[in-house]
């Protein structure tokens, strides 16, 4: 059972399968939308709507694997559970490499189906949360002035105001003011938090490749 507003998007060209899967998942409490082809799905589905894909591998026109491939990296990407008529190892390996949650063989066991769909929906929720967090951080970062960004880059490297001022050729007081603005715009209560936020969006320090735990020779920008 899934209490959220997530939807299971079914794409299968066989009418009876579409109907059966829809009915089963609906009876189990899932929200369901079914499409008769990959093209229909691409045309009609809402990338913003949370949910996962339940996808038939072998379809005329755009196949399940082709749809998966075209979604990778796009805003419409979402976790996929594949359904297949034949347990083809090569196809399943390919699908899993491209990030499929599961690869189920028809006729599918209901408990296996629910488990796979639950996992896919959970992954979708996690991914959406992660995306939301990153978006927030990015929005906050976008509010920083170029000078504030410079100061932040030094702060997350653990440098002191005095050092930063010397590097940037400005006064220590000025640096202090910039640092306070960075902390407030980024909604960070400590330098440690700021470092974490920056790391989430790939802004930060690259770990030193030097030897020993005490290697602290940060690269200078």
């Amino acid at each position: 059972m899934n209490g959220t507003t997530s939807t299971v998007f079914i794409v299968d060209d066989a009418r009876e399968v579409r109907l059966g899967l829809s009915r089963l998942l609906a009876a189990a409490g899932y929200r369901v939308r079914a499409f008769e082809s990959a093209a229909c799905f691409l045309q009609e589905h809402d990338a913003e709507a949370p949910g996962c894909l339940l996808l038939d591998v072998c379809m005329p026109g755009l196949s399940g694997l082709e749809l998966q491939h075209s979604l990778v990296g796009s805003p419409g990407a979402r976790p996929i559970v594949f359904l297949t008529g034949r347990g083809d190892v090569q196809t399943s390996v390919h699908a899993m490499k491209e990030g499929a949650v599961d690869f189920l063989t028809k006729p599918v066991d209901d408990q296996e189906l629910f488990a796979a769909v639950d996992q896919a929906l959970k992954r979708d929720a996690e991914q959406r949360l992660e995306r939301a967090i990153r978006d927030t951080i990015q929005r906050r970062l976008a509010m920083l002035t170029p000078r504030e960004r410079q100061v932040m880059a030094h702060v997350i490297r653990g440098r002191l105001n005095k050092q930063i001022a010397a590097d940037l050729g400005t006064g220590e007081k000025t640096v202090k003011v910039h640092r306070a603005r960075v902390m407030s715009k980024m909604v960070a209560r400590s330098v440690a938090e700021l470092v974490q936020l920056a790391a989430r969006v790939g802004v930060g320090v690259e770990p030193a490749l030097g030897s020993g735990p005490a290697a602290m020779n940060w690269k200078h920008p």
Partner: protein
Amino acid sequence: MQTLFSRSLESGAFALGLAAISIAVVACWIVERRRRLKAEELHAASKERLALISSIASCGFWSWDAATDRVWASKHARNILALDETAVLGGASLIAAIHPDDRPSVLRVINSAGSPADTLEMELRVNGPGSEIRWVTVKTHTYRDTKGAVQRVVGFVVDDGQRKRSAAELLKMQHKLTHFTRVAMLGELSGALAHELQQPLTAILCNANAAQLLSRKENPNIEELREILQEIVSDDKHAGQIIQRLRALLIRGETKFQDLEISEVISDVLALARGTLRERNVQVNTRVDEELPEVHGDRVELQQVLLNLLLNASESMSGNPARDRRIEVVMALTDDESTVRISVLDCGKGIDIDQLERVFDPFFTTKDGGMGLGLAISHSIVAAHGGRLWATNRPDRGAAFHFTLPITTGKESHERHNEYSVHSG
């Protein structure tokens, strides 16, 4: 002295005459003996030859003399007619050898033959040894005198059993081969068919599981449950149809000619091959003349021909881009309105000009792992239906295979009648 002389002269002449006569007699005797020996030799040789021909052709000779009502019959003739080798035979013995059911018609033919020197040929049954019934062919020639009265009838009789048996044997082999190639062809479809079968099975399981979940609720929606059950029933029937279609082609049944709608045969085949054609990205369009008359044929064998042509067509387009693989099936009445022509058109690589005829040769194949029997068998199936199968290249690109089938005309049937036929001439 003179008398003595003349007497002795007389007696000398007498002796001489006697000797001459004796020599003549002996010579005659020798000549006659040699002639007789020669005749006997010839007779023996011709008898030998007759026996040889008899045994090779497995036919027997006989003749009937009207004046004496005596029948002479060769050893083979007696064997075939199950008559005693030494018995003295009359006309009645010959008539008695004929199967009672055929006897009246034979008598009718004999008695109605009017003109002199009639030649007759009949296929009829005779009583073999025990209760065995034999099919034989009898040819006769009747000699008459100047007034037209029958003098003599000579004839020969052939046991058709051997010929019929080997023809039946051959037919059985052909039937087996036809079945064998059909099964091999179905092997090509098996993957897609298994896939197709999984759809209704998946749907049935989903629906049944859904019904279980719904029925556990406090106020189960009876209407929804009813719908689910209805769906299960129809999915199950669908699965049954797939198996039924496959089974019809898998089993080796008797050839059964009946009146058929050819468009129905086509749609059965398309249903069977749908999955395979889909996997190969092949689209099929069907064009049927309105009110196409029925054809006379064996459903399974015609399905085999169509399946063969469809699979070949899809194979020939394997080099085309996925969106460029189209087959057109056209069914139309021919101009003379006596046959229906079915054409399977593809847009593949076509056929080399010098191979247009050869494609129907047994073991001719362009496929990897192909047996080269499909088209040869299809060709003979169509021929057995009284039609023709041939290949052409389309003007723009691709190949076309056409075959004709005679349309059904009233109650006429192509089945062989189990009656003897009489040709007089």
